[in-house]
């Protein structure tokens, strides 16, 4: 599981790229979005097209060969009044 910011959403290739990292050592990770992946945007079931770059997402994934494959994606509301999303 990873919580990160969507950097890129490739709807045609069904890939997403996430910004993550430690301190200022930032990294991009690419995740394949499986056709059966459950996607939730603002609490509602959605398609990959509804994922918008810049949103913070929670991604559950499994490792498959040399890649990560998302099985669940949910957008998170980053509320200035909360300490964690």
């Amino acid at each position: 599981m990873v919580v990160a910011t969507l950097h890129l959403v490739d709807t045609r290739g069904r890939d997403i790229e996430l910004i993550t990292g430690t301190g200022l050592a930032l990294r991009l990770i690419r995740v394949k979005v499986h056709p059966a992946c459950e996607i939730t945007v603002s609490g509602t079931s959605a398609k990959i097209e509804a994922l918008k770059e810049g949103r913070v997402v929670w991604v559950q994934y499994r490792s498959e060969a040399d890649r990560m494959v998302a099985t669940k994606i949910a957008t998170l509301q980053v509320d200035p009044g909360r300490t964690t999303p």
Partner: protein
Amino acid sequence: MSRAAGACFVGVALSCLVVAASCGKAMRPGDPLGGLSKAQRDQFNGGRVEFSRVFTPETGLGPLFNADSCAECHESPVAGGAGDEVEVHVSALIPNDSRCDPLIQKGGPVLQQVVTPALKAALGIDREPDPPEATGRALRTTPDLFGFGLLDAVPDATILALADPDDKDADGISGRPNRFFDGRVGRFGRKALVPTLREFNDGAFVVEQGITNPAVPTEESIGGAPIPAGVDPLPEPEIDQKAIDLTDAFVRLLAAPAPHGSSIGIRRGRTVFLDIGCDRCHVPRLRTGDSPIKALRMKVVNAYTDLLLHDMGPEMADICLGLAAASEFRTEPLMGLRFTEQIEEGEPRFLHDGRAGSIEEAITLHGGEGASSRDRFSTLSAKDRKALIEFLRSL
């Protein structure tokens, strides 16, 4: 004991208590926090050795780096202090969007300014190239790290309680928190992107020295391209968990600098500081929350920051980062400001990018949310200006 002698003894004992409470042992720069256990002091001392450890390409340095040890930059007046080194950060504001791209795919946001001989031989470069996609390029000076463990222990709730993103109190000050890419509240770095000291330290090993570690086991790219084969032969991670734990302990347990002096000028300067509203962002005192380390738990730190982002005006703008716009910067902690002025190598440089050569110039360069205090500073009498600078030099 006679009643008179008893009264005298009580009086002396009370005087001692008062002196101990108000003065305590004078902390010197680079001292550990008071009240550490022996094990913590041992960690601190071991960490200072790691902090000062000089890496070479053979021990993992690079292939891209800014310095060969933590203490090469954080050096004045002792390890953990300020430095004259200035580094380069970049990012890009995406057109027609409010999003900020930290240009990871192009080697950002930190561009290393030195390369190992092997990388130079392989690619013929002297530093990481500036990506043409960057819409902003920033210089970043080296702050002292004294008291950063205390800043780390300030609860998120305290930072959020100080925020006023919509300026509901209409005082012209509208601080807001930055957020890391997973949504957590940030506080470290000039753009307050990084949520914890631990993460800042773990990441700094890689972005500043090219030293991979268990928390960050991969090297930085070279402008987005992978490292040529054979250039960085040491297997990852290049330091072990113990080394990074010790380094973190050293930084975390560095005592906050005790404000020194109590002259009439300093006392007057403190009043002026409050009168012209500097304290609206440079909040004098923060309180730490719970911590597994007793010396960090429920302590008052004279930080002179709110750890929030403030708009400093277009003249100050450089890069966006996370939620921070190009003109937004975290309120710089003023604790330890005197160490920047007393830097042993090079000229003193103030503000995030070192553009100010003196404290007075730094004040006059404040814009945006700092403009009101700057303007009030400009109307002060010469005596009050002098007092304010004297106070700031005491921090």
